């Protein structure tokens, strides 16, 4: 009950000050003795009254009909809300101050009357209620029967608990008001007086308000749910007017032509002119249209599209400009003509003065790089697949592969001393004697009298020749050679060893590490890296390509590029992972060869699509920095012959120039 009462008091809360006034007044003057006189009887009565009022309160609905809206909205109106029949409920006549004063003088009970603004009525407080208020004002419990000083019952059983948490008496300081707090308060008071602390200004009430709320921005709606406003229906235009301008009204011919159109294309609405509003007929599609609109509204899923505004240019990787990466080969200035068949392979002499080429017409030629002069021709008679110049400048010999044979030719360069050495090297006195060696059935070293050279006769077609950097070892790859697919020949001792590793897949190409005793073998699917000294596999690089066609090692030895038959180029950083660091899809046709430049940060790939691509491939000494790869130039100029384009490309060892050998029987030099 007390709970309900306090609730009621809460309701009247805004009026509290006034009640206080009244009570103060009552205290002061005439009601004092009255109050004292019938204290007991009244207390009884009030109990009754409270009971009654309580029950009546449950039944009586609030008289207010305007709902929970601010009362100021009706401040200037004569009425407040509407009754059930729709009539205005007029406000009670506001009595002026004089009248109310007179009334209070007349009516001895007037002091306990309060005006309830919300329900627009006067409420007379009962004696009991006044008593409650009075007790509350004194800071006592509202009910008289509540005893705040009831004797303390110690519910805690002390029998077993020998060690209470704390049995110490409350310290004195708990009962003394804090000195520091009072100092602080004084400080605040001073600050307020001086105006150092400013309080928030009372909020200014907006003068105008939206009667129907804010529906357009739906700002607070979007706060809660993902509210998507329905699409707005098309608004009627001029042609839907009852009296449209003449240009909107179709002529009879146009109306006839509508008949010829398809059902879907026909206009739904034909503008018409009416002389007056009265003559407009009912719109026959009204119900259908609104029904469809309703269907649209609740059946069509509305999805919020997330559109990201990103400049597509900003998604491109930031690459340095080509101009800053010069020099690189870009223009073809020289052409080496003389071959009558596709040039299958080229090789540049280590000093860069000469270039050797092998062609399908069965010749090996040596050209002067500077002028394009053909210096020497060997007529081998069979298509020369590969040529490779010995990397030692003082050992000017050339290895050329013809079918299953590898010829080691004396180019005739170098001074007399070097020539003497070369001649000794290339002379085999007697055919290799140790026939017991199982190698001899697969490979033989033969003196070739015709060209005065060594002929290494393999038992399968050789697909790749690669010299070791010291110029003494030569590796050859026979894809069909099974366990003897890769052989390493030693020129000075005329020895041949096979690679003591099991290969998985057909070998395609092999290459020596430029500085260490490491050997790379490219099979069709992946690249295997062997240590020749420790005789073990170090690494296996997975190319994820269909078929590897060529391989080249960066001169520092830690990076590798692999070209594939589907036109993809993979860059491997061997410190990084066994997966390609970058795969470049650039050629539409097979890549025939890839090459690194010895000193410039350049690499190239050439392809059967008659182009060669030049890339900038910078490898940093800093291990944290990944290699920078920038495509630089597409070199064109070769023509397609027999479906083949550029067969080989090699960089000049000292200049940023690229040689390309084409199936169109020409060799081109691209300079910077």
């Amino acid at each position, binding site marked *: 009950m007390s709970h309900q009462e306090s609730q009621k008091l809460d309701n009247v809360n805004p009026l509290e000050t006034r009640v206080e006034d009244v009570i103060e007044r009552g205290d002061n003057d005439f009601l004092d003795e009255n109050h004292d006189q019938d204290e007991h009887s009244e207390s009884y009565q009030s109990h009754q009254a409270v009971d009654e009022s309580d029950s009546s309160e449950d039944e009586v609905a609030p008289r207010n009909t305007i709902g929970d809206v601010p009362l100021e909205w009706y401040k200037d109106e004569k009425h407040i809300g509407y009754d059930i029949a729709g009539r205005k409920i007029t406000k009670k006549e506001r009595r002026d101050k004089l009248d109310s004063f007179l009334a209070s003088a007349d009516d001895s009970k007037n002091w306990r009357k309060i005006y309830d603004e919300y329900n627009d009525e006067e409420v007379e407080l009962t004696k009991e209620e006044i008593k409650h208020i009075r007790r509350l004002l004194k800071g006592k419990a509202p009910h008289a029967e509540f005893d705040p000083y009831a004797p303390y019952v110690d519910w805690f059983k002390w029998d077993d608990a020998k060690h209470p948490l704390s049995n110490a008496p409350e310290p004195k300081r708990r009962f003394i008001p804090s000195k520091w707090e009072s100092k602080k308060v004084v400080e605040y008071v001073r600050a307020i007086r001086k105006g150092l602390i400013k309080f928030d200004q009372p909020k200014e009430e907006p003068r105008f308000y939206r009667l129907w709320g804010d529906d357009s921005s739906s700002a607070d709606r979007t706060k809660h749910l993902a509210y998507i406003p329905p699409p707005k229906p098309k608004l009627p235009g001029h042609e839907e007017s009852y009296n449209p301008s003449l240009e909107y009204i179709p002529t009879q011919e146009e109306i006839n032509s509508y008949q010829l159109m398809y059902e879907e294309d026909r206009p739904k609405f034909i503008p018409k002119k009416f002389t007056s509003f009265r003559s407009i007929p009912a719109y026959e599609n009204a119900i259908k249209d609104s029904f469809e609109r309703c269907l649209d509204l609740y059946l069509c899923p509305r999805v919020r599209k997330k559109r990201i505004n990103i400049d597509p240019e900003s998604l491109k990787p930031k690459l340095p400009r080509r101009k800053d990466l010069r020099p690189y080969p870009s223009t073809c200035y020289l052409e080496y003509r003389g071959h009558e068949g596709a040039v299958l392979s080229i090789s540049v002499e280590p*000093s860069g*003065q000469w270039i050797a080429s092998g062609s399908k017409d069965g010749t090996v030629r040596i050209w002067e790089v500077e*002028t394009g*002069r053909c210096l020497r021709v060997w007529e081998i008679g069979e298509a020369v697949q590969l040529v490779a110049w010995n990397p030692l400048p003082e050992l000017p010999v050339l290895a050329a592969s013809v079918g299953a044979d590898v010829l080691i030719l004396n180019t005739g360069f170098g001074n007399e001393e070097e020539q003497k050495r070369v001649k000794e090297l290339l002379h085999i006195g007697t055919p290799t004697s140790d026939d017991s060696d199982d190698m001899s059935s697969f490979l033989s070293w033969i003196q070739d009298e015709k060209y005065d050279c060594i002929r290494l006769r393999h038992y399968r077609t050789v697909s790749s020749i690669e010299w070791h950097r010291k110029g003494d070892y030569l590796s050859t790859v026979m894809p069909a050679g099974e366990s003897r697919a890769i052989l390493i020949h030693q020129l000075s001792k005329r020895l041949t060893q096979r690679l003591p590793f099991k290969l998985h897949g057909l070998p395609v190409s092999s290459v020596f590490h430029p500085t260490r005793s490491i050997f790379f073998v490219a099979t069709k699917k992946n690249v295997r890296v062997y240590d020749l000294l420790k005789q073990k596999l170090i690494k296996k690089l997975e190319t994820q390509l269909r078929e590897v066609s060529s391989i080249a090692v960066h001169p520092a030895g830690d990076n590798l590029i692999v070209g594939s038959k589907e036109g993809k180029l993979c860059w491997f950083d061997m410190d990084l992972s066994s997966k390609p660091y970058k795969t470049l899809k650039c050629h539409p046709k097979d890549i025939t060869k890839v090459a690194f430049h010895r000193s410039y940060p350049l690499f190239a790939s050439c392809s059967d699509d008659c182009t060669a691509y030049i890339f900038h491939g910078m490898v940093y000494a800093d291990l944290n920095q990944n290699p920078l790869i920038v495509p630089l130039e597409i070199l064109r100029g070769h023509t397609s012959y027999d479906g083949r384009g550029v067969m080989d490309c090699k960089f000049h060892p000292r200049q940023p120039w690229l040689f390309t050998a084409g199936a169109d029987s020409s060799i081109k030099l691209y300079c910077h």
Partner: protein
Amino acid sequence: MEIERETNEGNSRRIQVRFITKLKAPYKVPTTAIAIPSDLSRLGLSSIVNKLLQAVDSEWKTEPFDFLIDGELVRMSLEQFLLVKGISAEKILEIEYIRAVAPRKEEEPSPHDDWVSAVDGSSPRFILTGCYDSLGRIWKQAGWCTHILEGHSGAISSVRIINSEGAGSVTVATASKDRTLRLWKFDAEDSTDHPARIRAFKILRGHNASVHSIAAKTSGDMICSGSWDCTINLWRTNDTDTNGDAVSIKKRKVNNKIEESQSEGEAVSTLVGHTQCVSSVVWPQQDTIYSASWDHSVRKWDVETGKDLSDIFCGKALNCIDIGGEGLALIAAGGSDPVLRIWDPRKPGTSAPVFQFSSHSSWISACKWHNTSPLHLLSSSYDGKVMLWDLRTAWPVSIIDTHKDKVLCADWWKGDCVVSGGVDAQLRISSDISIQ
């Protein structure tokens, strides 16, 4: 007056000009000012001057002229030229005319057996050529070979006349891809119908790779050579007698007629510094050598100390170099791109070329300054053209397009001819080029 009538018909603007010249009598025109249309270019101006000359001398044969305004050759219409140069058209314009620098005559080609790789025309009495068939040849005139220099075992890459002053005996040097240089002596005056075969009197060995270029000291007692082994060697040219003991080996070879002695020589000193093939050397002054190399640099060497004094970096592999211009100060060089560059080492602070001539379309194989004129030079290129340049304009003053393939070498001869040899195995002589 005819001209005026002609120009009256046209509606173009007219300019008052006065033609002046430093040429001698038959080329002089009256120096009165005349009005000519402003849209005339060199050809129009040339025909005006020719008409004026014809008015003086009815026998006058038409002659091409070139025109200079404020020291600049006119290569566009007058109006444009004045606009570009910001010259007022109100005043009377003084146009100087010179005889156009262009070959007026093409001599018969002199056939060789193989590519002509080197030519030297520094002696007015003969032309010396080197050929890929390892023979050197002396040509008295077009088509008349007087001597054949026989002895190299590889293609000749460079030839140089050392001294041609002596009345009878002439010394020349050849460099070859067989890593040797040879010195030859012959009498330039004896001329027979059948070319005489001569053998070298001295073989200079010492390079480890093919020799690319020779240059001779102006006094003629030393030569230098640049080679693929990245070095420049200096050699003495005097006869064996002076230091024959030191050089020891003497070979005696029995020829058909005469017994000749061949001595061998060793390099006096070696200039090391280039990192790639030294493709061209010149020795313009007593103690400085300039060299161009494939390592993209031009170096100036002091002969006495063997140190390089200055470097110019070009960015392209260089094939040829020559020193010329006013006071032998300008360095012209061409190489693995179609641009002929001219540097002025006196210009402080910058190594950028002062002139760049880029009308060629392929590598430049040779460049030579004119002997006497400081303004003219020629260049030959793999695009088959020899171009004559005048420093006063950026366009070639003349293009000789007689070769069918790459031109490998070119030189001036007698001051008014251009000799050039190339892959078509012909020595071409374009003569009658008037350079004052």
